[in-house]
């Protein structure tokens, strides 16, 4: 090759690559409205985007995995946490996380109520953009999902087929069920992970591992004590009733703590009463009542 030919190569390959790129760009523009639900970009979403920019959120957090890596990804945060929780969190993050424990903390941002509401609408729009199913598994903010605590994933469970005689055995907290066939606790553990939003996005079953919701370790013992005591505000008469009530009517009795509720309203979504079938609630109750 002489210099003229190499120059032609440089110009030619650049031109071809640029043309293909421009063509794809035009096609991408054609598809933006559908992929991003552009009709849902309301003035509030746009205002929320401005809040996201104004407070420089992207230089700690990521959305769509883009930003800085100092704080959790927020792409799907509104699908893991309810608005009440996120609003209270935005008002004072230090009530939710301990800087001494996690060694980092989000500074209080002093957003107005309107800014918070807009920001959450923006994040909710983000969570619904069709982005090829990323992340492949929910990115949690806190909580251990490791062996001995909470490890099993739906995929892992689906591959497990143990003999049926294990079905009647009570399961120790957080271990993988030996069978998923008949055992209501095993089925309940699946519901724990597969409900929308998933219970395990906010609750761990490990001792002391409080996430957005309190740890469910030792739930039964605590419930037994609570149900008979004067502090209890709900209607339930026994442990199973209490667990069932907590799933369906989270605000009937709230666990103390500014990170769990505000003005007597629990941050836990109250949507399970509609989204779960009665037998799923039974299974979930069975599973949770196994957490001694």
């Amino acid at each position, binding site marked *: *090759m002489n210099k003229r030919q190499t120059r032609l190569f440089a110009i030619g390959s650049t031109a071809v690559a640029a043309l*293909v790129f421009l063509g794809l760009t035009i096609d991408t523009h054609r*598809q933006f409205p559908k992929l991003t639900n*552009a009709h849902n970009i309301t003035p509030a979403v746009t205002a929320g985007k401005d809040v996201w920019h104004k407070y420089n959120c992207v230089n700690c957090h990521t959305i769509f995995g883009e930003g800085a890596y100092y704080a959790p*990804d927020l792409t799907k945060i509104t699908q893991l946490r309810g608005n009440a929780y996120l609003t209270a969190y935005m008002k004072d993050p230090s009530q939710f996380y301990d800087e001494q424990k996690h060694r980092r903390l989000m*500074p209080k941002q002093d957003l107005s109520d309107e800014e918070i509401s807009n920001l959450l609408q923006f994040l909710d729009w983000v969570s619904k953009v069709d982005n090829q199913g990323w992340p492949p598994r929910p990115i949690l903010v806190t909580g251990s999902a*490791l062996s001995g605590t909470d490890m099993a994933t739906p995929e892992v469970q689906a591959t497990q087929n143990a003999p049926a005689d294990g079905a009647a055995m009570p399961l120790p907290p957080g271990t993988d069920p030996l069978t998923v066939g008949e055992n209501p606790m095993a089925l309940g553990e699946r519901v724990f992970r597969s409900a929308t939003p998933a219970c395990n996005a906010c609750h761990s079953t490990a001792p002391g591992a409080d996430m957005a919701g309190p740890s469910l370790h030792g739930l039964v013992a605590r419930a037994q004590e609570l149900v008979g005591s004067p502090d209890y505000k709900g209607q339930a008469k026994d442990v199973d009733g209490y667990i069932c009530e907590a799933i369906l009517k989270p605000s009937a009795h709230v666990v103390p703590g500014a990170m769990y509720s505000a003005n007597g309203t629990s941050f836990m979504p109250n949507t399970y009463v509609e989204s779960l079938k009665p037998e799923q609630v039974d299974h979930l109750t069975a599973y949770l009542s196994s957490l001694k």
Partner: protein
Amino acid sequence: MRYKSQSVAYWYFAVAMVLFGLQIVFGLLSATKYLGPDPLLYILPFDVTKVIHTNLLIVWVLTGFMGATYWMVPDESRTELHSVKLAYVQLGIWVVMGVTAIIGYLFRFGTGNKLLEQPLPHKIAIVVVMLMFLYNIGMTIKKSGRFTTTEGVLLLGIASAAVLYVPALLHYENYVVSIFYRWWTIHLWVEGVWEMIQGGFLAYLLIRLSGADREVMEKWLYVIVGLVFIAGILGTAHHYYWVGVPGYWLPIGGIFSALEPLALVGMAIYAYSAMRRSGMAHPNTLALHWTVGSAVFTLFGAGLLGLAHTWPSVNKWTHGTLITAMHGHAAFYGAYAMIVLAMITYALPHIAPGRREQGTPLGYWAFWLQLTGMFGMTLSFATAGIGQVYLERIMGMGYLDAQLKIQVHFLMLIATATVFATGVALFIYDFVRYAPRFEVVEDEADDGAGARVPRPARV
């Protein structure tokens, strides 16, 4: 120094050095925050130190590019610059823009758009500076009537860099669309036209330093540019993973990003074979270290480490983790920081004749400490990132808990970053140690066109 007007380059380099030093300060601050708890949480939180860290990088590297161009173009075109005054005015506006932007960031006065956080007036100032710069360089070449290929590649690179900044000025209602065009600026800069600029400087340095044949070097420069753009333009697709664009960007990103190392392999072979063919006769062996070092480190940081997480089925798990920081640090340092430092090291003995031309011992310490430090930092980010991906993304451990498990890698990061910062400090000290004299030396013609007899080194 053969032309008096080349002295403007020195002041660009000096500004670049100050900003480089500041960038490292804010980088170190950011790194310590990973260990936490942060006593500066309400004074200088992470988002502020990080935005300053990345913006200073862009500003100092561009300052270095401009200075190096002002150094190189008179040499190549054998003429004085069109307007020295314009070059200084340009530097003045640039510095005011840079300093006010940084001070603004301290008070969160920015647009919060990743890497393009500059407020609008600053963006306009950047465009104005670039236009002044292109005009000055263009007029210089036009007046001289001598336009080399190396210059052409460099100039086209700088002009395209200015054009590609335009999408950054526009505002998009749809966040996904703004992501789409952000990468037209950032990616096509970093993996496109900046590589062209790097290639231009590399060719210039290799021709000067090794005395390699200009025709051969420039021929291969075209090949490298071709390879850069085949892979680089369509490689933009790897920034379009998982952000809300059509799925076909995934395979395109996978395939063309995998081709990106080709150009970088080409560049490394290019540098190495020039050395092999023509020897390392030039007395400025320190500049040779930086030049070849840049080509090799680019191949490692941009090429290899980029390839490591660019395939969609891998990136699905690594996207948005410290793996990206691993690649980012090594790539930017190898490709752009090192090529600017190479140009500075090459030019400096001509500007400040008190200096040993083959480099001071301090200069070599600076080189090796920086390299060791950056290599260690890259490994720290890599090990932290692998831990993060495994614990957080694959096992499903919460983000904050996973970060606690990888604390030891942050300690390693701070230790190696300290080594790196020491290297940077030595480089800056070595830069300011000798006062510039700006003497024009007539007989310094060494454009590599013919057989060149290297001067014996002053020891």
